[in-house]
């Protein structure tokens, strides 16, 4: 991968020449190609989809449906299994609402201790607390397999789990976990939150064999406001639509309405047309770079960072999550002495123009109950990051130490 060339794909680096962006787990930067593709819609064929019989609307509809095909191919699904939403949060809420009637009153939902609030609160809201089984993590940030096997029983109707933790970076062995869960209860529905995996590694949905898989466009070079639900067909068909209205109906009368087929059934109203088409461009862009190249690049950066942090700061730095690089994605959360992460992030920003995230990263139970710290500082990598960025980070952290003592 030639990073200098990749950086040229992003106007933002031209406009902010000294920008060191280490917060791609929150949102990735957007390549010009994606912005241009979206502008193309507004400049040249701005029309609503699936309604007009005129040319512009047909072009818009075609491009929108082509994006669905591109996204489907990107994860190894067929296009009727792809539903567009406004993001991972919307995807998970749509599934939770859609399954509400299907989940029997005495069944349980299993979830891990490291979930993002997006994949936690919707489930917590759905069932009473004695029906939510929290699967433990061990000290190094891996799912505790023994606890996993204990918490999943024949009464567990649903398992929801992130592919990659947005705090620890742990890559969970989804295929294996799905397999174990289905052996215990063949009826279990497994939902995978792929918000942090899809941007960074090649996804083969057939191989993972989960029932639902969700992710956000804005973390993978696409725009904000677009997300995806992949689902097995018979399950997608069973989801009660969270939204009803235009574009999802078959026959509407004053007394009764019937719905159309998936995917349209779950996409009521006018979608983010330009955004979806932008996501189509983003997946092509990532495919051209190569997902395996991206993964390798991030692993190299991660190793470099880990070594540099320990070498420079020794025991002043505590890094959370697996120490074995092959088990983690390009996310690294740490504490630095007793410095508050907000101070670290503010100083890195104001002195060195480095963007990092500080806080609990929408994973408060994980911080409070597992890591036992109120907050961490998080850096996360993507295709445009280099060792130079890491060197700058180290310099910046030295400055933090000088200021906060």
């Amino acid at each position: 991968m030639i990073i200098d060339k990749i950086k040229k794909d992003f106007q933002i680096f031209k406009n902010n020449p000294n920008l060191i962006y280490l917060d791609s787990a929150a949102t990735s930067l957007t390549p010009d190609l994606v912005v241009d593709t979206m502008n193309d819609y507004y400049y040249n064929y701005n029309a609503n989809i699936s309604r007009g019989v005129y040319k512009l609307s047909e072009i818009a509809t075609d491009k929108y449906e082509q994006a669905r095909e591109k996204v489907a191919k990107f994860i190894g699904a067929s296009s009727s299994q792809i539903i567009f939403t406004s993001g991972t949060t919307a995807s998970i809420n749509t599934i939770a609402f859609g399954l509400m009637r299907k989940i029997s009153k005495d069944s349980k939902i299993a979830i891990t201790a490291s979930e993002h609030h997006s994949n936690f609160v919707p489930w917590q809201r759905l069932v009473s607390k004695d029906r939510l089984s929290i699967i433990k993590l061990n000290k190094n940030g891996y799912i505790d397999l023994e606890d996993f096997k204990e918490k999943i029983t024949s009464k567990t109707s649903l398992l929801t789990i992130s592919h990659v933790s947005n705090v620890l970076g742990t890559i969970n062995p989804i295929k294996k976990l799905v397999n174990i869960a289905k052996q215990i209860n063949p009826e279990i529905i497994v939902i995978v939150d792929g918000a942090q995996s899809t941007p960074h590694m090649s996804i083969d949905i057939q191989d993972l064999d989960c029932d639902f898989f969700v992710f956000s466009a804005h973390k993978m070079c696409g725009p904000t406001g677009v997300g995806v639900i992949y689902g097995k067909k018979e399950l997608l068909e069973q989801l009660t639509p969270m939204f009803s209205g235009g574009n999802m109906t078959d026959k509407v009368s004053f007394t009764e309405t019937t719905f159309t087929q998936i995917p349209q059934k779950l996409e009521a109203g006018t979608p983010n047309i330009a955004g979806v088409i932008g996501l189509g461009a983003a997946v092509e862009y990532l495919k051209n770079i190569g997902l395996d190249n991206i993964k390798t690049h991030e692993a190299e950066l991660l190793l470099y960072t880990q070594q540099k942090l320990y070498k420079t700061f020794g025991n002043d730095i505590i890094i959370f999550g697996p120490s074995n690089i092959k088990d983690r994605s390009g996310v690294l959360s740490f504490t630095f002495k007793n410095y508050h992460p907000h101070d670290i992030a503010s100083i890195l920003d104001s002195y060195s123009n480095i963007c990092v995230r500080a806080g609990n990263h929408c994973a408060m139970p994980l911080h409070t109950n597992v890591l036992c710290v109120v907050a961490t500082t998080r850096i996360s990598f993507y295709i445009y990051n280099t060792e130079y960025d890491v060197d700058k980070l180290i310099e910046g952290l030295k400055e933090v130490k000088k200021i906060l003592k």
Partner: protein
Amino acid sequence: MSIYQEHILEHYHNPCNNKILDNATNSESATNSTCGDKIRIDIILNNNIISDVSFSGEGCAISQATASMLTEKIKGEHIDVLKKMTKDDILSLLGITLSHTRLKCALLSLEVAQKSILN
């Protein structure tokens, strides 16, 4: 301009009134949920005069330094002085401007102190 000015760091490293008052007449605490800052304020009121005040808890340099400055400012004052304090008073104590997110850190101790004298 960096928000980590000399006088702010001085308060952060050597905070004033950083303790718990066992005989407080008024106490209140709160947390800032985005970053987990925790502040507790203890006040001893004597005929509506703040005869002693302290803060405790943990948080970033901005929240700790502000709490220190605030307690220094209101000690010995009538409670009306505290009641009337606003965001702008805190910013002029600090002598810096703050972004939206960091403003929350700076205002936490004032919110807690004002809440403690509500009843």
